[in-house]
């Protein structure tokens, strides 16, 4: 579970500035998970582990939605999201932005069940995860991402919604009920609920508002090797954590089809002039361009979203160029996701 530092929550002092600062933080937090999931996705050999890939991909797409929603919220209350500075991209390994150092160290690592369990599920873990055929509940309840969003939601006021509606980003990419212009308090609260429930589910159901499993449970499907289904024997009296079981169709994971990418390749730069360094630089430049483009998208140029999506799609191909380079007998190079504004 991601636990946030107290000073992040303390940003929320009831003022509009406080909510803006918290939402900028939310944008950084939502973004920070994306390289983590993409890196693991890139380690799956093309054409293999399709189920696993599709689960991770579905979460990535929703994390992008959450980042978009957080930017829309910030714009709705007269803020201006910042995505184009070096500090926007976290260092891997490390805590997520604002995260308590001890709570969870997030790494860039190739696909393994341990990584999905320890890092992915750790990132997405709800305050009260429903342990379907699983362990006991956590006792501690410091500041979680869910609480963070709940506090943002509670501090929003009608008078805050002074933003220019033309800065709101909507796209065919996501359904209208998930991504919509935010111009008032009701819309803002609904949008926050989407972020929280897609990520964590509710206290009683693993489902989000759209009836999909929340991220935590989707990742758990990978670890359990089974899709989560409704318990066919459940009755209205069945406790919440027994209403669903990991007993659906198999989610097969073939570890033989994982490229042995380096874990946290950013820790030690590849030698200057090496093929790996050249390919990593090219990837980082494109990744940085993607962020700079998004910055413009969320600062009055929503029409540039098409270009941002095109760049994002092309990253996959640039990542493949890196992951085909061997750094030693057993290991392949990986993208480092570092801010590189000039090549």
């Amino acid at each position, binding site marked *: 579970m991601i636990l946030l530092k107290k000073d992040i929550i303390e940003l929320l002092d009831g003022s509009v500035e406080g909510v803006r600062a918290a939402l900028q933080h939310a944008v950084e937090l939502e973004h920070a998970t994306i390289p983590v999931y993409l890196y693991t996705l890139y380690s799956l050999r093309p054409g293999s582990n399709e189920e696993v890939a*599709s689960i991770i991909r579905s979460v990535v797409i929703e994390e992008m939605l959450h980042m978009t929603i957080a930017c829309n919220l910030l714009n709705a209350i007269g803020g201006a999201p910042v995505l184009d500075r070096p500090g926007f991209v976290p260092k891997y390994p490390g805590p997520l932005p604002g995260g308590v150092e001890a709570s969870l160290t997030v790494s860039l690592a190739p696909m393994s069940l341990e990584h999905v369990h320890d890092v992915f599920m750790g990132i997405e873990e709800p305050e009260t995860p429903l342990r379907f055929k699983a362990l006991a509940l956590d006792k501690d309840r410091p500041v979680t991402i869910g609480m963070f969003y709940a506090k943002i939601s509670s501090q929003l006021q009608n008078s805050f919604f002074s933003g220019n509606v033309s800065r709101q980003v909507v796209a065919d990419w996501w359904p209208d009920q998930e991504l919509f212009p935010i111009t008032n308090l009701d819309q803002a609260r609904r949008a926050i609920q989407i972020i929280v429930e897609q990520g964590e589910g509710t206290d009683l159901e693993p489902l989000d508002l759209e009836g999909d499993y929340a991220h935590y449970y989707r990742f758990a499907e990978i670890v359990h090797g089974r899709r989560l289904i409704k318990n066919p024997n459940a009755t209205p009296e069945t406790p919440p954590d027994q209403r669903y079981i990991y007993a659906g169709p198999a989610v097969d994971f073939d570890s033989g089809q994982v490229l042995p990418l380096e874990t946290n390749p950013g820790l030690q730069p590849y030698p200057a002039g090496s093929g790996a360094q*050249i390919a990593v630089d090219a990837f980082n*430049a*494109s990744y940085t361009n993607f962020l*700079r483009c998004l910055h413009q998208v969320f600062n009055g140029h929503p029409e540039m979203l098409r*270009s941002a999506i095109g760049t994002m799609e092309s990253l*996959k*191909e640039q990542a493949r160029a890196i992951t085909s380079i061997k750094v030693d007998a057993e290991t392949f190079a990986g993208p480092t996701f570092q801010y590189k504004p*000039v*090549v």
Partner: protein
Amino acid sequence: MSYLNPLRLNFAGKFKAAPSTVNNDPTHFNNATFKPQYQEWGKGTENGWWNPSGDAVFRLIDCAVTTAFLNGNELSGDRVLSLRVSDSGTRMPAKMVDLDSEQQMVSQIWGLQIRICDAEGNDAFSGEMDVTSFIDIWGRDIGSDANKVGDGFFSTYYQSVLTNVTWSAKVTSPFLAQLRAQTEETGLSIHFIVDGYNMDHTSPDFTYGRIVGTIGPHVAHEPERFTLGRYLAPVATQGYTVNYCTAVLDTAASKLLIDLGNALPTDGLGGPQSNLGSLTVMYQLQGAWQPLCSVDYLAKGWYTRYAGISALPLSRPLNKDELAAIQSGPLAIQFSPTAQLPGGTVLQEATNGQHVRADQFVFRANPGDVVEVDLWMTQWGQPMANGSIQVVIDNSQLQGQPGIWPDVGTPAKAISFPQTLQTGADGRATLQIKTTDPGNPRDYIDGQVYGIRAYPASQTYSAQDPNEFISLLLWDEFTPDEPITWYGSMQPIFQQYANLYPIMARFLNLASYDDICAGRNLPLLRLAFGLEESDPNVMPVTRDLSAGKRKAILRWLTEIGPDGKPLLGARKVDPVPASTPAGQITGAQSHPSSDPLPTSLLIKGGKAVAMSRRLGQLRAPAQEAK
């Protein structure tokens, strides 16, 4: 004056160009005979040549400003000297694209953004380069075995304008302020030379090469893709390998600006200038050649720091007599004799000083389009009013293999244009090329490629720069089935795409209807096929689909059936009708059993092969006008 201007900056560094090479072989366009091995590296026609998985990226790498001139004076201490030259800041890098499999000698750069910025990426200015093609490609490296270095042997240049230039108030300097003040209405002119390309796919520098360039003001009402100036052509002198060069007479400063950057040979791949003896720029005074100034082209930094540009005379302005003589008589370049070389004139301007150039010289057209070509005629570098221009069909520089590859330039009647033109008072004339449906003369390759040459009527055809001609790709008329279905008319287009661009398999299998319909592929494809042609991410990257086909694809992707997918249609019994129009193509369905090229070239592929397959040297117009 373009980039050849007393106000200019130079830059140098590396470039990356990673074209896909499966389509270097026209026969690979044939879906009926395509083999999976054509997507594999190596061995010429039986494989995918030297970079089958190329992604077409063109980008600048580690480029920095090397020097800058303000009022003709080289600067020191100006902030611009500390800046980098980079490309796209908010999107994917530019793409390098051939016009056609049978015209690979005018590769274009699409979607190049140029940024002059500090090391943290803060822009001083940025602009979009108008699409342009390289020209005057030549075998420059005389120190290496061409069979070993492949295209590294070549040098060529790009020239265009930067538009939509945005300036920063933060990153500025006296030089930048002057450049901004002088160009805010007009944009900037950019010129860069690329050589030393690495084609060794086992090297980390594979697909990288050397680049030097210049940015200066673009002047309103001047051409964008060449310099209104003097053109010096190689003279057949025993022992010298040199190339065309450009000069501009700056009458305000009384200097001759000459660009020898793409004119002199090097020793080795991206190596130093070869020593050909001492170089002197000559002019004519009352019929006699006079030395104007020598150029120390062997000096350190002449190429990488100054991009081969000199302002002459070096230490003084031109005097009145020199100025007058240069304004009305030819220029030349002479070398002194050395132990190995005889010396003599190696480059010279036309004796009557006339020159004709098309500004944009590479075109794609749909049947019925009227292609308008902006022609400029100059004499002694000045626009020439009432000049006579001759226009002829000239397919001699296109690449073919008669009997093996589809013929080029047929049917000739699909294009028509006036044979003679007169320039207006501004030295310009618009050549209108009318087009009709060529009628699928190349069977498995869409449309046809044509060459058209415009030159001064006062000069002979054979005296012209072979590179300076107009390349036109004219697509076939395309009528899809109605309603549009996969099996009806989409499958062959997507299959060819998947065959020729293996890189697409990293995204999806374009030859698979199911894959196209899977996940989020449909909206992504709609987006990519619907982008502006100038967008680096447009599909197809190769810009080789006719308007009719692109429109049909977009309709097919959009007009979905009750199952939420584009229409599948009914599979044909024989999905591959391999019909060959009578008399057009012979033997094109199979590969030649013996290739006339040396094996080393076949493995290397690229421009070396394309150049070797040009149909001929400049032939008399009568021979071409068949």
